[in-house]
């Protein structure tokens, strides 16, 4: 379907054929803008918000606060919606949030097998690997193998809980707080918390660099 095509139409798009997404999205955008159905400045503003302002640092703040405050941790695990509202976190894909805590003997990991649902307002847009058919197909059937492949080995005694985001509920993993961080301010704790750890495919590593 991606035919060879000649060059030299004197047009800067001619390295793509009509089935290429580059050409198609330009055509769609032009038609929508001309009809007053889309505004290029708003399109740019939306994408820039998701490139710069909305990302894993929001979820990392929640995690760090929960590490630092046992009362907040309890609320986050029982009524995350209230905590999210209190922290004035708003946006898409957080209709109802459930936070699942990793602890000794229990490891949580999140997927959306039917689509690629993800808590955008807490973690930003999902990475490609999360949206890949490989991850969506395999992590429900062989979570230990998938996690090991991604660098996270779990012992046989640890229970694995896989959360498939099939309704409008969105899941966030509360990773275990690494040793050696006692007394750290939440800002410094938040810097340790990675996107992967809040999806459940990585641990938060010790600040000692382990």
């Amino acid at each position: 379907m991606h035919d060879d095509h000649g060059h030299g139409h004197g047009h800067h798009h001619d390295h793509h054929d009509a089935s290429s997404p580059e050409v198609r999205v330009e055509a769609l955008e032009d038609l929508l803008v001309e009809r007053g159905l889309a505004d290029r400045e708003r399109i740019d503003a939306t994408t820039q918000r998701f490139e710069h302002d909305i990302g894993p640092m929001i979820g990392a703040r929640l995690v760090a606060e929960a590490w630092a405050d046992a009362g907040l941790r309890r609320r986050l695990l029982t009524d995350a919606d209230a905590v999210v509202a209190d922290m004035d976190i708003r946006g898409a894909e957080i209709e109802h949030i459930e936070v699942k805590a990793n602890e000794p003997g229990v490891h949580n990991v999140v997927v959306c097998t039917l689509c690629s649902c993800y808590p955008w307002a807490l973690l930003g847009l999902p990475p490609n690997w999360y949206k890949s058919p490989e991850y969506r197909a395999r992590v429900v059937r062989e979570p230990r193998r998938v996690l090991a492949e991604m660098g996270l080995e779990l012992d046989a005694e640890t229970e694995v809980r896989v959360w498939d985001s099939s309704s409008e509920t969105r899941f966030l993993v509360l990773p275990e707080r690494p040793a050696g961080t006692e007394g750290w301010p939440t800002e410094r704790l938040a810097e340790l918390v990675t996107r992967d750890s809040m999806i459940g495919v990585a641990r938060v590593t010790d600040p000692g660099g382990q």
Partner: protein
Amino acid sequence: MPPDAEEPTPATRGVHDLGGASGWGRIPYEADEPPFHADWERRVFGLLGPVTSATTRRPGEFRYALERLHPDDYFDNGYFGRWLAGFEVLLAEYEVFGPVDYSARLEARTGPIPSEVRRMSPELRVAPVADRVPSMLPPDRPVPVPQRRTVRRDLAEPPRFGTGDRVVAPTPTQPGHTRLPGYVMDKPGTVAKLHPAEVLPDSTAHNRGERPQHVYCVGYDARTLWGDDAEPNATVYVDLYECYLTAAESD
């Protein structure tokens, strides 16, 4: 492209219903991926709001456009490629602009295009939504719609199941959008928790009303799902709408 299926899957499973599908290889992991890998992905993402405003904001309808795509269009250009094809489907079905306009724009960029790659045309490889009408939806029970745009609804009816109840979701006999993953169909699970009630995407995706449902988080022991292939000590939790579920016979 998806690998050839090594085992039969229920007829109701669509291209998107990937949970447990065999034959897929290594996770294409990349550390610290950015949200977009090319400018065209950025543009597609930015068009989500305009396209849904011009067509539909009903829950599930855009997803159902993706689920009806030909596997090539679903997989070939990744997540945003799938969105782009879904936009083409919705814009054509809602007649926001026609295939002639669109083809003309494409040809202005590429020169004459062969009909087999023409989009939004009669050759568009998508299963028509009109041919896939869900016929066995639960009765509608209108409830007040909150002012804020949300899929959550307050139901007066109490939930049919409680935590610890054994339940099973039979394989659906009707076509259409559903949030019931194929890999749990006909398998017994245990209600772990209730989530807030929501409108039923199986209905809203087809413009058949909200029909709100209680939603249950149902836990499935990996051995129940995968038999002898199951990894030890694993549970998969799936969120299911009440109308999917019946009481499981005790085992």
